[in-house]
């Protein structure tokens, strides 16, 4: 094949088939992928662990599982252990006969065999199914400057922005190929130049902006560019504490799903912005000013996809991306307080909070677990997005405070405060 990038003798040997035809095709894919973006070389993956986006044994993805089997049959596996996105089904989550039939007989018929493939390729544990692999309880926490071969847009944008690691917005399979080869093409967000901000976002709100709406507004404006956000520390502080990290998790997921942001800098807060300040801003960067009215405009622009928009919601999901331990505790307190005020004992509609299995385990060791269970809220490790990835979901009326879930499904967005009102008072 023709290529322009510089390969080491070891990489060239792999490309020429020294470790077999399958490994040669893995490397050829990475070379072609890098060439498409002008990569000049390959650089080693340095993080301790990888993260894959493909967690679901969806029948329609059979060609992907066939490809994975080719890798396994050739004796290939990831050079690092990896975590993977959440599972699509959890028996605890409210369902019905028709949905169970569709899930188990038509859609996720490959789940067990795919889980086995993941184990063979390097899955770190059967508990490692979450989109928030970077939680302390999960333990896939890259260091600043680490080079990653990850996919899952919300995890990539968090790792780049909050942790200061370096990773491109990879597609599924490409991230696994990088982990198998042990190197990734040098372009985009793994380069110094690619991490410069081409947008300045000035936050001029008079109240704390809802993370999911602020992220949505910025994502829709800058698309795949890098924003440098000023004025946000007035609301979330200058310490990367649990509150700030949870805010940035939800903010980042919205930038990545409502646009295609892979990295943002928060002035005075995120590691590279603290270290390098405005030198991160590229020449001729565009400016986007956000105030309360702009956030309201963006929120009001979301289409309502329900067939009967005036009807009451039937199901609520909170936790896309998965909640942190602290968020789970806060939601528990808020739901208990809200129910007390409204004189109710249980939430008014079936409600599911989602978090990583390891976070659920930690939560279940605390006194909050019994309090949450008493409210009728279900705690699950499920991926709400995959749960809604079927034709029957379009018939149901699901509400969420997740802008990612809203974007990819027919669920309806409300702010966290509005969600709390709905599930504790039966409002809306």
């Amino acid at each position, binding site marked *: 094949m023709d290529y322009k990038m510089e390969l080491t003798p070891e990489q060239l040997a792999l490309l020429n088939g020294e470790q077999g035809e399958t490994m040669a095709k893995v490397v050829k894919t990475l070379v072609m992928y890098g060439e498409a973006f002008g990569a000049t070389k390959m650089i080693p993956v340095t993080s301790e662990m990888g993260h894959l986006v493909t967690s679901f044994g969806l029948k329609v993805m059979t060609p992907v599982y066939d490809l994975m089997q080719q890798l396994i049959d050739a004796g290939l596996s990831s050079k690092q252990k990896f975590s993977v996105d959440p599972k699509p089904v959890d028996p605890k989550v409210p369902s019905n006969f028709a949905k169970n039939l569709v899930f188990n007989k038509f859609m996720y018929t490959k789940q067990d065999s795919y889980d086995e493939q993941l184990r063979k390729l390097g899955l770190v544990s059967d508990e490692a199914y979450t989109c928030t692999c970077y939680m302390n309880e999960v333990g896939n926490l890259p260091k600043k400057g680490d080079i990653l071969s990850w*996919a899952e847009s919300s995890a*990539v944008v968090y790792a780049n922005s909050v942790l200061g690691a370096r990773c491109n917005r990879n597609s599924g399979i490409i991230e696994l190929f990088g982990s198998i080869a042990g190197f990734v093409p040098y372009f985009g967000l793994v380069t110094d130049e690619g991490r410069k901000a081409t947008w300045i976002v000035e936050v001029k709100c008079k109240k704390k902006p809802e993370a999911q709406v602020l992220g949505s507004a910025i994502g829709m404006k800058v698309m795949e560019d890098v924003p440098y956000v000023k004025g946000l520390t007035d609301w979330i502080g200058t310490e990367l504490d649990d509150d700030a990290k949870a805010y940035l998790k939800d903010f980042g997921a919205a930038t990545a799903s409502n646009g295609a942001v892979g990295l943002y800098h928060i002035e005075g807060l995120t590691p590279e912005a603290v270290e390098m300040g405005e030198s991160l801003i590229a020449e001729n960067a565009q400016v986007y000013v956000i105030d309360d009215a702009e956030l309201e405009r963006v929120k009001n622009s979301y289409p309502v996809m329900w067939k009967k928009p005036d009807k009451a919601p039937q199901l609520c999901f909170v936790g896309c991306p998965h909640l942190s331990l602290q968020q789970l505790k806060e939601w528990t307190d808020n739901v208990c307080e809200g129910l007390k005020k409204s004189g109710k004992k249980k939430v008014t509609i079936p409600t599911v909070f989602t978090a990583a299995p390891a976070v659920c385990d930690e939560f279940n060791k605390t006194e909050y677990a019994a309090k949450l269970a008493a409210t009728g809220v279900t705690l699950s490790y499920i991926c709400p997005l995959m749960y809604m990835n079927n034709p029957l979901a379009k018939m149901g009326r699901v509400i969420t405070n997740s802008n990612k879930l809203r974007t990819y499904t027919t669920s309806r967005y409300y702010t966290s405060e509005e969600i709390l009102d709905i599930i504790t008072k039966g409002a809306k």
Partner: protein
Amino acid sequence: MKTFKGRPVVPGTAEATALVSHGGFNTLASFQTALQFDKPEDKTAKCGDQNNADIFEKPMGGSALCLPQTIGSTTGGMVLYCAKVMGKSPACMLFSEHIDSLAAAGCILGSVWTDTPMPTVDCLGEEFLNTVKTGDKIKVYPDGTVEICD
């Protein structure tokens, strides 16, 4: 006939009818229903993305898909690869802008891991997308030349 010159990401030849998406093409939303619920022998792959008025419910299989970039989930590349293997992908993909990382993954996976690569050309320019209309006859050449035939 009008001719445009782009960059061949996956070189090849193709002749097909244009299907034009002026907005970002959401790969997962577009292919999800067709791949999941259509019969295997049904290769039409009608677009299921209700947010894309340009191509919603129009057949994508075997078309010359003209678009700025793809958007959406990082499963996009895998979905495109599955469509290719299942014989439901476009005949070629023609990008007015620089190809995005998700589409690049799908097109390149199709090139390396199947016997029938899908010719892919990017950087065709804004004028290309302003000129080409759904239903136009398209010819693609290995050097990235794209002809819109009268």
